[in-house]
């Protein structure tokens, strides 16, 4: 028995009517079992044609005042980023806070932070797709876009953190006339190049393939011939034939299969930057799973942040319902507990290893001069998400929003703690030192948010922010099949005229 046959939810108009619990009909299921009818994924009694209009609308009309305000703020921060980078390239790494014991600072922290954010998109689109989690359809497009833009933000940091960034291309191993200059395959930084570029490319391909039918929808709705032509080219001349759908579905499945291992491999390799070193506090085998979980954790937090805006300002409440938010809150709580478990395991191993160096680094982390950062990290990541034990909190928009922001603050500080506290007091007490961010570190950190939001707002402006074809697939046909009332009225009015 499929869910659609007996949906009692045709009249659910918005998410205030959702409960987050299925209706249980005792004994009505197969073989005399209970029948659970989940709540609908799309509310508001939407028809299929409503979906086209609601979602394509933002790409079709002149942007709202709110969009312009948001875009100009984002663009200002992007300008700050560009100016800071000009200064950085002109005068050198000296403008930053890094120094002799702490050779990596905010740039590597930001890099790991953004790469982590990028994980949720692929997880939602690929892993949840393979696990047939239908609630992913409302959020996967935006989450994948977030992944791409986060990877773009992350991608600039390993380049700009180089002392001579203009030679960054030396890291690409291709036959060349510079000696030939070859790279050192022993170095985790060389592995990073492959990991990140693969991830970026596969995510982009996956995202774009998913976009094809929706681009065709935008094309079909377009009235201006140029607009039609551009979106037609972007959708590769999508016809919507059965053959096209057949190929599309298998391509999507294959790409999901390819992207899934990348969710785990990228951050594993990023963690090798630290784990393969000899620095106490970095040299730990727990890093790969710990980094992957942290990445999913922070990525889901960012999705919640963005979805709060999408629901609030883009009228997406019928497609990204409170049930979606609650599902994400559950993942946030689970990954938050796993992260907390990783923190505790690290401490246990530091003690259990009996290594003086290791033990000192962890004591210093929690109780040394950067204890405040550890406190922020532990509170935001391991304690704050515990609020989601309460269903009411999982379904409270503001609580979700605040927690999602705090989690990302906490995850930024997690990287701060890992990078800074391990370096600032290492083997020789004589070389110990302190690290702090300069105004240019802050400018570039906030500037990277400017880049992220500029890209995201352009995405919202020009592309369908929800996967139209996929959402249609999870709607109740009994509700969605009939023509929308306003269209019936419009057609009638047209015929009368």
């Amino acid at each position, binding site marked *: 028995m499929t869910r659609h046959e007996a949906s009692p939810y045709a009249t659910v108009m918005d998410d205030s009517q959702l409960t987050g619990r299925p209706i249980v009909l005792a004994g009505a299921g197969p073989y005399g079992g209970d029948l659970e009818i989940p709540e609908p994924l799309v509310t508001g009694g939407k028809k299929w044609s409503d979906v086209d209009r609601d979602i394509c609308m933002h790409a079709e009309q002149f942007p709202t005042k709110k969009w312009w305000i948001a875009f100009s703020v984002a663009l200002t921060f992007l300008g700050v980023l560009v100016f800071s980078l000009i*200064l950085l390239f*002109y*005068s*050198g*790494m*000296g*403008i930053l806070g*890094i*120094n*002799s*014991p*702490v*050779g*990596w600072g905010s740039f590597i922290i930001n890099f790991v932070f953004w790469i982590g954010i990028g994980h949720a998109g692929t997880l939602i689109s690929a892993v949840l797709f393979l696990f047939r989690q239908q609630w992913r359809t409302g959020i996967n497009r935006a989450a994948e876009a977030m992944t791409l833009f986060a990877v773009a933000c992350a991608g600039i940091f390993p380049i700009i*953190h*180089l*002392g*001579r*960034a203009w*030679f*960054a291309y*030396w*890291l690409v191993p291709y036959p060349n006339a510079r000696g030939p*200059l*070859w*790279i*050192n395959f*022993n*170095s*985790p*930084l*060389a592995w990073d*190049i492959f990991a990140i570029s693969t991830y970026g490319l596969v995510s982009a391909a996956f995202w774009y393939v998913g976009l094809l039918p929706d681009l065709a929808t935008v094309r079909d709705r377009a009235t201006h011939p140029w607009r039609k032509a551009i979106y037609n080219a972007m959708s590769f001349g999508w016809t919507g034939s059965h053959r096209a759908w057949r190929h599309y579905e298998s391509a999507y499945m294959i790409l999901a299969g390819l992207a899934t291992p990348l969710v785990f491999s990228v951050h594993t390799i990023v963690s090798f*930057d630290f784990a*393969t*070193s*000899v*620095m106490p506090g970095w040299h730990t085998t727990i890093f790969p799973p710990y980094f992957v979980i942290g990445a999913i954790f922070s990525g889901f937090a960012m999705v919640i942040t963005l979805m709060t805006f999408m629901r609030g300002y883009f009228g997406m409440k019928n497609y990204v319902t409170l049930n979606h938010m609650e599902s994400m809150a559950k993942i946030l709580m689970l990954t938050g507990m796993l992260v907390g478990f990783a923190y505790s395991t690290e401490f246990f191993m530091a003690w259990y290893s009996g*290594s*003086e*160096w290791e033990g*000192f680094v962890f*004591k*210093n982390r929690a*109780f*040394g001069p950067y204890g405040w950062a550890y406190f922020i990290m532990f509170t935001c990541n391991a304690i704050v998400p515990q609020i989601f034990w309460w269903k009411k909190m999982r379904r409270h928009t503001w609580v979700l929003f605040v927690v999602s922001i705090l989690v990302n603050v906490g995850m930024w500080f997690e990287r701060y703690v890992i990078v800074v506290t391990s*370096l600032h*007091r*290492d*083997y*020789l*007490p*004589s*070389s*110990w*030192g*302190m690290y702090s961010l300069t105004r240019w570190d802050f400018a570039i950190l906030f500037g990277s948010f400017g880049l992220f939001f500029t890209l995201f707002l352009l995405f919202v402006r020009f592309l369908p922010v929800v996967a139209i074809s996929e959402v249609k697939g999870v709607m109740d046909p009994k509700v969605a099949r009939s023509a929308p009332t306003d269209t019936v009225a419009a057609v009638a009015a047209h015929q009368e005229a």
Partner: protein
Amino acid sequence: MPGAAAGKPVPNPSLAWHFLRAGWAARLALEPGTPAFEAAWNEVLRSGSFQGPAPAAPPARALAPAALALLAAIPAAPAGLELQLYPHLALHDGQHGNNAWLHEFPDPITRISWGGALSIAPRRFDEMKLANGDLVEVDAGHGKLVAPAYRHAGMHYDQVALPLGLGRTACGDIGGGVGPNAFALRLLAGGRPLSAGLPVTIRKVAGSEALAFAQGSDVIDREARPLVPVTTLSAYEANQKSGTEQQAGGPSAWPEHPYPNARWAMAIDLSKCNGCGKCVIGCQAENNVPVVGRRGIIDGREMSWMRIDRYYDAPKKDGRWDADVWDGPLPVVEEPQVLFEPMLCQHCENAPCETVCPFVATMHSEDGLNQQIYNRCVGTRYCANNCPFKVRRFNFWEYGKAQESALFRALEPRIKRNAELNTRGLMQMKNNPEVTVRNRGVMEKCSFCIQRIREARAEATRDGKSKVHFPDGAVVPACMEACPTGAITFGDVNAPGSKVAALAAHPRAMKLLEAINVKPSISYLTKVRNDKA
């Protein structure tokens, strides 16, 4: 300036030209315009140097009994706090105050560079609730001075001390206004300056000033971190290896380097090292190490390839020290045991820096050097992070060259200051033509004076001598050359009968951080303390 034929001065309208010539006329004791003067003047210009007559020997000084009478003028030792003024170790009275190397040289004990501070006994310091750098007013009655405070291990409770030679007002771009001028506190007693035992009072005043420390923690707990080999004479007599105990490392996954020919290595005898730091300056002069200035030291960007770590040895105690031992608790710093350890690139056999560089900019040579290739370095700084000895130095700025943009110089005044420090005055002439001047964005570190090694090799080729092994003394790096006590020995450890091989095999030898299996090329020889009366 154009040269002139003897007897025919070039007509020059410049006032400065005449002034300069008049000055040299006085120095050469010749009349300007005479052929003798022109010949001598041209010779000075040509050679670029001038050797004046040897100074006359000072007249023999007889004991002046009258001087003894002056002792009466010296005030009696005060009962309270006494101030001692001591010459700065590098600058002395300050006459070379415009030399950036001397300012950058960290005091061997306080480890302060670019300025000085009032040394206060740790107990008094803690009682006054001071922090390093808090401003303190020193009142000697006849003069007052505000100086930053420094918690100086081993100071007597009733003593404070301040270095002389700082705070010059008219000195030049580099040294002007650096540090407090302690001459203001000197007492003239009976026409004689008095610099010691001055009765003073001190009080905390508002404000603080960052001190340019060239070192992190002062203390070493050798139970936890056996990084300096130290023992006592009686322990040494019982066991020659005493003091070199450390945590053992595991097996190595890396293949060993073969070293078919020479293998360069160093041995540093800590019993001989007195921490004077001449090796540091010698290295800086030889290897074109830039000056980073006070702000550079505070920012933690010292460039010195060599440093002398100064530790206060935490005394043995029952059980373990808590983590706060690193902050210098009173039991450690009131009667400190000072250890000096020259620290430079250890040229590890399993160098952690070599494996992590994605650009292969640092690699192992077949004669055992850990080489840094500047034009291949792109500046990931991963090598420096992974260096357990933190001896790698990154060029955060373009030190050797002035940058022009007024906007960026206004945004970052350090750009202007770096150019001043490295290109003005004496510093224009500091560069060794045998050594590359590194540009910004690249990593650098001790090269074991590779230019001298390669020169010795070229010489051996020229003279038809062995290029496989080099005798002792064929290569002397700058630090070894500068060391007045002969604590540093450098040579080819594979050469039969070489001194460094004997020292590396000596029971006193310890290679650091065996726990992580880096296998340094530098052996530290135990400092043996005499515990017998």
